[in-house]
């Protein structure tokens, strides 16, 4: 019976983590899945979101669960600028160049943060952190994770609605389908792309802000999330925002179960193995319809 409850706990925790993965993944689905930009700085943007929220919290005492909104606004602007100034000059096919460019950006941002805030690990303290919600006598869920889960669901749905139902979202998808015809129907390609990129980056930033209460913060904290974001997008299916959401949840659960049965250290390895299996056997992912 205990085994059942351990597994259930792991699955529930996995869903909680997975919600944030879903946010990160949705942002990447927009950037890589729809825009085909290989963004190796995605995790770094998450880290910037964390630090922005942290800074706001330290300077003004504003609770991160509100502060993240400001941080994500800042990150949207940053993403928009990065696209306008740098990325838009890259031809679409040169994915290797995009990788090098975003890698360079990742290094610049990470080092800049380290110079500003130092390399030490920090942690914030909120009264909420100590609270747990108990389901029966066997399951216990940490309150901050529940709050971030709820927020992630809301924001994720918002992002989905934005991409599917607003003009800009549709324009972004149109550009992805046919970059040559889009300007002909009146789409300002660069502006739409910049907005999409900014939105994707903001998604990472939000996830970072929501992670702040429950994670240590240090300059290289974001790196682990970049590769995971790619795994999520491929698993969910290229170009599919909802696919990335589901894949994020799945990944969270899989990681937690792996940790439970095989130990923490194998969780990331399992992520990559899944990634390679998907690429080999079902490249279009769970929801994807695009050929790889």
């Amino acid at each position, binding site marked *: 019976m205990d085994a059942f409850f351990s597994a259930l706990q792991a699955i529930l925790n996995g869903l909680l983590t997975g919600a944030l993965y879903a946010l990160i993944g949705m942002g990447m689905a927009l950037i890589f899945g729809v825009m085909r930009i290989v963004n190796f700085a995605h995790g770094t943007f998450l880290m910037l979101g964390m630090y922005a929220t942290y800074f706001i919290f330290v300077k003004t005492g504003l609770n991160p669960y509100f502060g993240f909104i400001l941080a994500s606004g800042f990150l949207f602007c940053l993403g928009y600028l990065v696209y306008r100034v740098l990325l838009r000059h890259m031809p679409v096919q040169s994915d290797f160049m995009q990788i090098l*460019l975003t*890698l*360079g950006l990742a290094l610049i941002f990470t080092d*800049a943060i380290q110079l500003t805030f130092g390399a030490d690990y920090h942690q914030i303290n909120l009264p909420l952190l100590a609270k747990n919600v108990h389901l029966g006598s066997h399951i216990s869920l940490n309150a901050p994770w529940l709050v971030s889960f709820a927020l992630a669901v809301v924001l994720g749905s918002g992002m989905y609605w934005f991409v599917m139902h607003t003009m800009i979202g549709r324009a972004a998808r149109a550009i992805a389908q046919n970059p040559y015809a889009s300007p002909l129907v009146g789409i300002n390609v660069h502006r739409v792309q910049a907005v999409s990129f900014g939105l994707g980056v903001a998604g990472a930033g939000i996830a970072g802000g929501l992670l702040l209460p429950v994670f240590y913060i240090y300059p290289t904290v974001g790196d682990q999330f970049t590769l995971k974001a790619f795994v999520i997008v491929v698993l969910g299916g290229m170009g599919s925002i909802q696919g990335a959401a589901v894949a994020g949840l799945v990944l969270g659960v899989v990681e937690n179960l792996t940790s439970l049965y095989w130990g923490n250290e194998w969780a990331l390895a399992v992520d990559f193995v899944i990634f390679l299996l998907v690429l080999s056997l079902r490249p279009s992912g769970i929801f994807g319809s695009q050929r790889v």
Partner: protein
Amino acid sequence: MKRSELVIAAFCFAACLLVPLVVRADYNLQVLFRVFLFAAMGLAWNLVGGYTGQLSLGHAAYFGAGAYAMALLPPLGVPIWLALVMGIVAAVAFAALIGGVSFRLRGPYFVLATIAFAEVLRLVAKNLPNVTGGDVGTQVPSLFTHAISRSFYLAAVVLTAAAFGITVWVSRSKFGYYLMAIREDEDTALSVGVNTARVKLEALFLSAAITALGGALYGSLFLFIVPDQVLSLDISNEIAIVAMLGGAGTVLGPILGAVVLETASEIFKSVFHEAHLLIYGLLLVVVVMFLPEGIVGTVNSWLRRRRAALAAGARPQARRVSTP
């Protein structure tokens, strides 16, 4: 490369072999070791990345294979030269697996797959402490017992010369032409009878073998290796960047790239100290934005354009008012 250029290159390598007569300090020789090691690694990567157009960011898998073979086999009684060979065998085996899966993928998926493979290897090495020493690392026996820094430096020069020679041979051979055809357009390559799947694998095998030797040298010099170092994305990136910066698909590019990158790194580390990664990142961004073909590549393009322009100017071009 013309005959005369090859002679010059041979002279340069010979000159490099004489450098230890002038440079004595261990630290400096190790810096030069790094320059040549990465020149060799860049040349090896270039075979697959530059000539064949398959941009791998997972070469750490082969580097680490060589390093770990050197670390794990000699203590079991395996003679050092055999450990080197086994490292190559392991790297080629990984290449068969990685290539077999990844070469079927296009564009960014190929790159991501190569990263994923290397990462899996890194994590496996980290999580099997009984075999590999895990996170903490493992010792590596030294290849040389006498005049260590100088010997490793010379070994690196020899490896670079060998990689250079191989690259020159490839660039002038049928194999090299087939690689370039694959890079330019795989369908065209197929249409002229190139077995693209097999040729890509052959290039990867060659690349992996040289990279494994580099890894073995590296591990042997530093006497201790850790998965997060020899199997890391950082090593994969550095190898690729060295080649891209200098000019992928050229013979001199990776060498030049290694010289520029490694010396710049050294300077950044001592001058900027705190901010050296930031400067490194800026360098990447600048190169991508302004020198996408790398240094040698950009020079070559410029020369090619000049030649074409001169030829077009010289030929009397009958202006045709054409109607289809």
